[in-house]
C-alpha cells in the first residue's frame, strides 16, 4: 500500500495539471487514469483531435472552395480522410506523451487503472488486467470530468448515431449529417464535416444557437454558418430515431407544437451537452454528495467529505479544460496551505469554427438582467485592414463597459482568430481595466487586434476607423 499526500482520480486537464502543480509544491502525488494515455477527454477525444480536424478541414475547404482560386492558387484537391485521421492521431500521441514527460519531470506517479474511493483516504485502483491495488492518501482529488449527455430515444451506437467521440473518427464523409444540439461541440464538428463535403443540418431545442453566448454575437455567428451552408432547425425537439444499416430517420417536432417531421441522414451526431462523470467512484463510501445532475457540491473545491476535493467538469462552473486547469492549480494550492482562487467570471470561452467566437465576462443579456448601466463599443471586421486583406471579414469585436467607471465588463468577438485575441481582455479585466485603457494602448498594425481597440474607442464614442 502506497501512502500519498494527494491522489487524483482522472488524468485530464484538471487531473494532470493538479498532479504537476502538486509535484512542483513538493507533495507526493499520484494520478489514477483508466485510459491508456493521459490527457483525458480534452487530449484524446475532445479539444485536441477536434482542433486537428478543424484546422485540416479549413484548409481543405479553402482549397476546394473559391478562396484559393481568388488568391490565384489553382489546385485540384483530393481528400485523403485516412491520412487526415492519421495526422490527428499522431498529434494527439505527441501531446499525451508530453504529459507523461511532465509527470516524470515533476515526480508525479501515474497509476493506470480505474480509481474508486473505498473509504476515507483510500483509493482502490483496478487495472485493465483486473489487478487491484489500494492507495492511501491524505487528500483525494476527484477530477473525473464529464461524458456526453445521452438523448432519450436516440441511442448512441457509434455506428450511425455517434457522440462527439464517434464524430471525430467517422470512417467516411457523411452525405448528410444531422447534428442534434447547436452548442459549441456540435457546431465545431458540424463545421468539420460540412467542410469535408457533408450536408449538415443542426437541430436545436432552443430558439437560438450556442446558449450562454451573447445574443447579438450568436446571431451574427449563425448568419456566418448559414452562409457556409449549414442549415439550422431551431426550436425543434428530436423525439425518436430509427436506424437502418445505412441511414437514420429522426423524428423532429417543433417545441412550440405542430406537426412532426422525419429527417433522414446517413449519420447523426448527438451533442446536446455533457454531464459530470461521477458514477461508480464510490462517493457514497465517504459521503460525498452530488446534486440531481451528478455535479459534486463543493466549497472552494472541498466536498462534503473531509480530505476529499473535486475540480473541473465534475463540479459547478463552465465545462472547459482551462477552467479545470484553474481549478486544479487553486485546489492543490489550497491543499498545500496556499491561497488558491479562481475568478469564474474571467474564464473565457471559445468556439473554434470559422469565424471563431470568443468571449469573456458578461453578455449584454446578463448586464441587463442585473440592472447594470453599460456602454457598448463595436467594430466590424469589414473595417479591419488585416481581416480585409485575408478575406475574413465576417464578425465584429464588441466591448461592454460600465457606464460610470468605464470598467470592461464583457468582451465578445466573432471573427478570425477571436480565440487568440480574447486573452488580452482576460488580462485587462483581471486588472479591472477600463475600455479607455485598451483604447489608449498601442496595438500592432495591421492586425485583427486593432478591431478590439477600435471597439474600445467606440465605448466612449471615438472609434476612428469606421
Amino acid at each position, binding site marked *: 500500500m502506497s501512502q500519498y499526500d494527494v491522489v487524483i482520480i482522472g488524468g485530464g486537464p484538471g487531473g494532470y495539471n493538479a498532479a504537476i502543480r502538486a509535484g512542483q509544491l513538493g507533495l507526493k502525488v499520484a494520478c489514477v487514469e483508466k485510459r491508456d494515455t493521459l490527457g483525458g477527454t480534452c487530449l484524446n477525444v475532445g479539444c485536441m483531435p477536434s482542433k486537428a480536424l478543424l484546422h485540416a478541414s479549413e484548409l481543405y475547404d479553402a482549397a476546394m472552395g473559391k478562396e484559393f482560386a481568388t488568391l490565384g492558387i489553382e489546385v485540384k484537391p483530393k481528400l485523403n480522410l485516412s491520412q487526415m485521421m492519421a495526422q490527428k492521431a499522431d498529434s494527439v500521441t505527441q501531446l499525451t506523451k508530453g504529459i507523461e514527460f511532465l509527470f516524470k519531470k515533476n515526480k508525479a506517479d501515474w497509476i493506470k487503472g480505474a480509481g474508486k474511493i473505498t473509504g476515507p483516504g483510500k483509493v482502490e485502483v483496478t487495472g485493465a488486467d483486473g489487478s487491484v491495488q489500494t492507495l492511501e492518501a491524505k487528500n483525494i482529488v476527484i477530477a473525473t470530468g464529464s461524458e456526453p449527455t445521452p438523448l432519450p430515444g436516440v441511442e448512441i451506437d457509434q455506428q450511425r448515431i455517434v457522440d462527439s467521440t464517434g464524430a471525430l473518427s467517422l470512417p467516411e464523409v457523411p452525405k448528410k449529417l444531422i447534428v442534434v444540439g447547436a452548442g459549441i461541440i456540435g457546431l465545431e464538428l458540424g463545421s468539420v464535416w460540412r467542410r469535408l463535403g457533408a450536408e449538415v443540418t443542426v437541430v436545436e431545442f432552443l430558439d437560438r444557437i450556442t446558449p450562454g453566448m451573447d445574443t447579438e454575437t450568436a446571431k451574427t455567428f449563425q448568419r456566418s454558418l448559414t452562409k457556409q451552408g449549414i442549415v439550422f432547425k431551431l426550436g425543434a425537439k428530436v423525439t425518436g430515431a430509427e436506424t437502418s444499416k445505412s441511414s437514420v430517420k429522426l423524428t423532429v417536432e417543433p417545441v412550440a407544437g405542430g406537426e412532426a417531421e422525419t429527417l433522414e441522414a446517413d449519420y447523426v451526431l448527438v451533442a446536446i451537452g455533457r454531464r459530470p462523470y461521477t458514477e461508480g467512484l464510490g462517493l457514497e463510501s465517504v459521503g460525498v454528495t452530488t446534486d440531481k445532475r451528478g455535479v459534486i457540491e463543493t466549497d472552494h473545491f472541498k466536498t462534503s467529505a473531509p480530505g476529499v476535493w473535486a475540480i473541473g467538469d465534475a463540479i459547478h462552473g463552465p465545462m472547459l479544460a482551462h477552467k479545470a486547469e484553474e481549478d486544479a492549480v487553486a485546489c492543490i494550492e489550497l491543499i498545500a496551505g496556499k491561497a488558491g482562487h479562481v475568478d469564474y467570471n474571467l474564464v473565457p470561452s471559445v468556439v473554434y469554427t470559422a469565424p471563431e467566437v470568443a468571449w469573456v465576462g458578461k453578455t449584454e443579456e446578463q448586464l441587463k438582467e442585473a440592472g447594470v448601466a453599460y456602454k457598448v463599443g463595436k467594430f466590424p471586421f469589414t473595417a479591419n485592414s488585416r481581416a480585409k486583406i485575408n478575406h475574413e471579414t465576417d464578425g465584429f469585436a464588441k466591448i461592454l463597459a*460600465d457606464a*460610470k*467607471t*468605464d*470598467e470592461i465588463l464583457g468582451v465578445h468577438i466573432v471573427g478570425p482568430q477571436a480565440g487568440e485575441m480574447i486573452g488580452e481582455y482576460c488580462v485587462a479585466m*483581471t*486588472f*479591472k*481595466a*477600463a475600455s*479607455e*485603457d485598451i483604447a*489608449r*494602448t498601442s496595438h500592432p498594425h495591421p492586425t485583427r487586434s486593432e478591431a478590439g481597440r477600435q471597439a474600445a474607442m467606440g465605448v466612449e464614442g471615438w472609434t476612428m476607423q469606421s
Partner: protein
Amino acid sequence: MADIMTPALGESVTEATVARWTKKAGDAVRKDEILVELETDKVSLEVAAPADGVLSEILAGEGDTVEPGTVLGKMSEGGAAAAPAKTEAPKAEAKPEPKAEAAPAPAPAKSEAPKPAAPSAQRIAAENSLDLAKVSGSGKDGRVTKGDAIAALESRASAPAPAAAPSAPRELHEREERVRMTRLRQTIARRLKEAQNNAAMLTTFNEVDMSAVMALRTEYKDVFEKRHGVRLGFMSFFVKACIAALKQVPDVNAEIDGQDIIYKNHYDIGVAVGTEKGLVVPVIRDADDMSLAGVEKAIGAMGKKARDGQLALDDLQGGTFTISNGGVYGSLMSTPILNAPQSGILGMHKIQERPMVVKGQVVIRPMMYLALSYDHRVVDGQGAVTFLVKVKDAIEDPQRLLLDL
C-alpha cells in the same frame, strides 16, 4: 504592533516634515517597502517598513513636523489581511496645495512606489490635477482604476472648499497666491540669515584673466575627455586653485566654535548646484588628493545626484570651503553669503571679454570677476586678499599649480 519611528536625521538636523505617505492605513506592506517620505533641511528621507505586516495607523500626517524618535505610525506584523483603516492622516490637507506641486506626475518611477495607475486614470489625473497618490486603488494589488479616479474627482467636487490657510496675516487678492515654503526653502532662508547675523561678513574682489586656462582647455579638452571620460571644465581649476590658496591662508579653511578656532587640515570643497527645488551644496571630499579629472568626475556625480534628488545627508555635510558659480546664470559680480559655519566662499562669475592694458597695450582678454566673502572674525583683510590673489595667479598661470607655487 510595531511603531514606525522617525529615524536619526543626521548631524545638526533636528526635525523633519512628513512629505508623503505612500501607503494608507490598512494597506499590507512588505519588509523594507517604503512607507513614508520625510523632508529635512537638507534632503528627503524614506522610511521603510520594519517587517511584513499591515500599516494599521498613521499618527503623523502629511505636513506634520517630527523629530527623531517621533512615532510616525503603527503597524501590525505578519497577517496580510488588511486591517480596517482606522485613522486617516490627521492633519493632512489643511492648506490648499501649490499648483506647481499638484502636477500629476503619473506614478513616480521608483521601484518601491505604489503600483502604476491605469492609463485612463493617469489621463484623468493629468487633465484634472488630481494627485493619484491620494486616491485609494480598487484594482489588482491596489492599482488605481479609471473608476477610482472618477470617484476621486467627484468627491473632490462635492467636498467643501478647503479651509483657508490658518491665521492668514492679510487678505489675498485674486492675482496673488499663498504658497507654503518647502522645507528646503525654509532652511535656506534661515541659514542665510543666520550666516549674516553671526559672521562679520564682508567681500573682497579681484579679477582674473582666463586666457591661459581657456587655452589649456582648448588644447587638451579632447584628449582629456578621451582619457578620463569626463569633460574638462573650469570648476576643477578653481577647486585646485582654492585648495592651493587655502593651504597658504589656513584661516579661510577654519571655523569659529565658541571661544575656539578650528583649523582644518582637510579640504572638503562644497560646490553649489542649482536644482529645481533650490540650491544645494554637495561636498567634494578630500579634493586636495584628487586630480583635475577626479574633481570633474566628483562634481558630475554630485550634480546628477542633486538633480535626481538622490543626495544623502552625508553628501551635504562637513564642507570646509564653498565655491559658488553665479556665472552660469550670467552674473557679472556678486557678494556670496557664507555657508555657515565656514569662513570663506568664493564667487565665480561670467567670463566677459574686456579691454585690458597689458604691457602698455590695450588688448582684449576674457575676464572674470572673483569675489571672496569671508568671516572677518577669523580671516584678516590681508589673508583674504592674499587668498584671492593666489587664486588669480594660479588661474592665470596654471603651471604654478603643477609646481606648487
